[in-house]
């Protein structure tokens, strides 16, 4: 009921407010002195509070990077944890300024929700987690299995498509929250737990014996995960979009959290544009000239953020794979800052 009433509040807000969407999100955020960022409810590596109560994760770092670009202070973010079901309503109603909550970019979400995706923070795909004791080596051996999923995601449709395509039967049990889904899987209600592969790795850490569970090799869908903003505010859309691009470009240019101050003194024309010692690219975005330096100082470049949260330097230990830079065998590519 709590969840429904939340949605209800948002719906009521949409009904009653008059012209609620201002086209001036940046100004609103600056006046408020705080960025409102919708994140996940506790997905290790993407958005979860650490033992001191600080939010950490790749999705969280995107929010911090935006706050750094605006306020030069990555802590000026109010994180609002949202369930998969409530996230779009929260964005539509103006409750949050940006949604950075491992959300898959699809055509219908881009067109019908009154919101826009600003880029891809993580190229993912849907996979399956099973108990090793079942001795299953391929998703094609899952005929007649019971599958636990979280409701309100692209996962349920992919699952239906995959089993139908391969002529397999299955039983789906859909839960409202990720935690309950995993608990049901662990208690043996389901043979399989399915979500995006990165999520499988993250959730596996929460299980009693992570080593007893294996992620199957099949990846059954494309899940490009990215931040979303409301439709109709191009300035804000540009800023969020270029914050992520700046992180990727910084990695490509070799700018890291450590060397950022040195690099800022560089004479290279490209770096001068990036750091705003030449031109006013940052001001065109509505922030200051040194916006890239602020972002990198706060959260590091894309590669650093990736390693710290989900990659080699984290408990998840996920390989860069598709998320490697385009010139290193991956598909992460950002337009140039110029």
């Amino acid at each position, binding site marked *: *009921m709590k*969840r*429904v009433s939340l*949605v*209800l509040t*948002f*719906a009521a807000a*949409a*009904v*009653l*407010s*008059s*012209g*609620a*969407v201002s086209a001036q999100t940046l100004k609103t955020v600056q006046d408020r002195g705080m960025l409102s960022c919708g994140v996940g409810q506790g997905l290790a590596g993407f958005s979860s509070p650490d033992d001191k109560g600080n939010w950490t994760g790749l999705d969280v770092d995107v929010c911090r990077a935006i706050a750094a670009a605006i306020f030069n202070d990555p802590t000026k973010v109010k994180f609002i944890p949202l369930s998969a*079901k409530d996230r*779009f*309503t929260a964005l*539509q109603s103006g409750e949050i300024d940006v949604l950075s909550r491992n959300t898959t970019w699809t055509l*219908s*979400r881009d*067109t*019908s*929700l*009154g919101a826009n995706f600003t880029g891809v923070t993580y190229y993912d795909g849907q996979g399956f987690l099973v108990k090793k004791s*079942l001795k299953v080596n391929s998703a094609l051996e*899952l*005929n*007649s*299995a*019971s599958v*636990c999923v979280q*409701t*309100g*995601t692209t996962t*349920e*449709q992919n*699952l*239906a*498509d995959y089993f*139908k395509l391969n002529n397999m*039967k*299955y*039983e*789906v*049990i*859909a*839960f*409202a*929250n990720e935690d*309950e*889904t995993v608990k*049901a899987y662990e*208690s*043996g*209600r389901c*043979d399989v737990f399915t979500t995006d592969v990165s999520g499988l790795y993250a959730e596996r850490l929460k299980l009693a014996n992570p080593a007893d569970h294996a992620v199957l090799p099949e990846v059954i869908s494309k899940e490009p995960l990215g931040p979303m903003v*409301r*439709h*109709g505010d191009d300035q804000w859309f540009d800023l969020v979009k270029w914050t992520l691009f700046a992180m990727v470009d910084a990695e490509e240019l070799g700018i890291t959290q450590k060397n950022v101050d040195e690099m800022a003194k560089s004479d290279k024309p490209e770096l001068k544009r990036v750091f705003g010692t030449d031109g006013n690219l940052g001001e065109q975005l509505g922030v200051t000239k040194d916006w890239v330096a602020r972002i990198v100082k706060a959260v590091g470049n894309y590669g650093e953020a990736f390693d710290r949260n989900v990659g080699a330097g984290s408990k998840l230990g996920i390989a860069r794979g598709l998320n490697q830079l385009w010139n290193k065998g991956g598909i992460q590519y950002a337009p140039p800052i110029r």
Partner: protein
Amino acid sequence: MSIEPRPPPPQFALLLKRALGGRAGWGGFALQILFVAALLWIGYEIVENARANLAAQRITSGFGFMRNTAGFDVSQSLIPYSGSDTYGRVLLVGLLNTLLVAIVGIFFATVIGFVVALGRLSPNWLLSRISGGYVELIRNLPLLFQILFWYLAVLAALPNPRQSISVFGLFFLSNRGLVVPKPIADPGLEPFALAILAAIIAASLLRDYARRALFESGRVITIWPYALGLLIGLPLLSALIFGKPVTFEIPELKGFNFSGGSRLIPEFVALTLAISMYTASFIAEIVRAGIQSVHKGQMEAGASLGLSRGSTLRLIVVPQALRVILPPLTNQYLNLTKNSSLAVAIGYPDLVSVFAGTTLSQTGQAIEIIAITMGVYLLISLVTSAIMSFYGWRIGRSLGA
């Protein structure tokens, strides 16, 4: 030839004025029209405002999505359903699942509630304390925790399907639920069903006859052996003549799960168990209050007529208590139906889970879907209230009140 007073001539204008304007006459009538107009205008403004806002934000609106393909599956459906059906059908699937929990839950809540109430009123010390303990324990714990407790407790206690508990190789109990043989209709089913129907009609005629005999001449006719004979004998006869009505499909373990047979999923069991027990604790108190509201002289009168305690309760006390019990009982039924929406926590595919959950997030049309869902719950509640009011009216009439 009897003389009846002539009815006064009808005064339509006066009647209309009374009905519409009350005591205030035509002036009040005008005021009411204005009030209704204002309400309609406010409603129109709300809808228009929402529509304009949604259009300005480029959020899709309207009810066209109901005809789109849903593309996801549901673990329990009372009607044939697959991923290639529409969102409209998803609504129906969810609604039926909600109704199933509500009806089964109301049934068990009522039975448990009455039993506990009678237990609490019982002169037996132990029984009354156990019943009292039940009420105080169950009604004071949050329902959501009870649902989760039953779900996880039930799941934890049961083995996986490969080690399922088998009863005669026909019933299998595992953490996938209870699998039972599935009846499949045979040609003998139609006469069998007709035979049952005939037996029920005959038994109720018999009951009417016995009642009339009791009220008119005071004879007590014991009819239950005949009724039982009819209810068992007629269908049996039909089965002997026309062949067996159904054959049973025996479930067997194939791969991960059982194939064949029908299955009671653990989500349904946990949810029904939790909401029936929870609501029963409130119903027990309502029933106890109702029974205690009947003057104890009634009980004594029954005893002095030589009726047993059970008969006194059944024939004298409970019918009078029902008048007090029914209105709060209706509230509990409505609560139970609405509480069933907590199903989403344990993955039972009720209306809120599949429609206000999955469908909402797939289509993103929050306003329409929440409006439909609220409308459906309102409708269910109004129908429940209407049925209970009708029942109350009948009781009131039969008591001559």
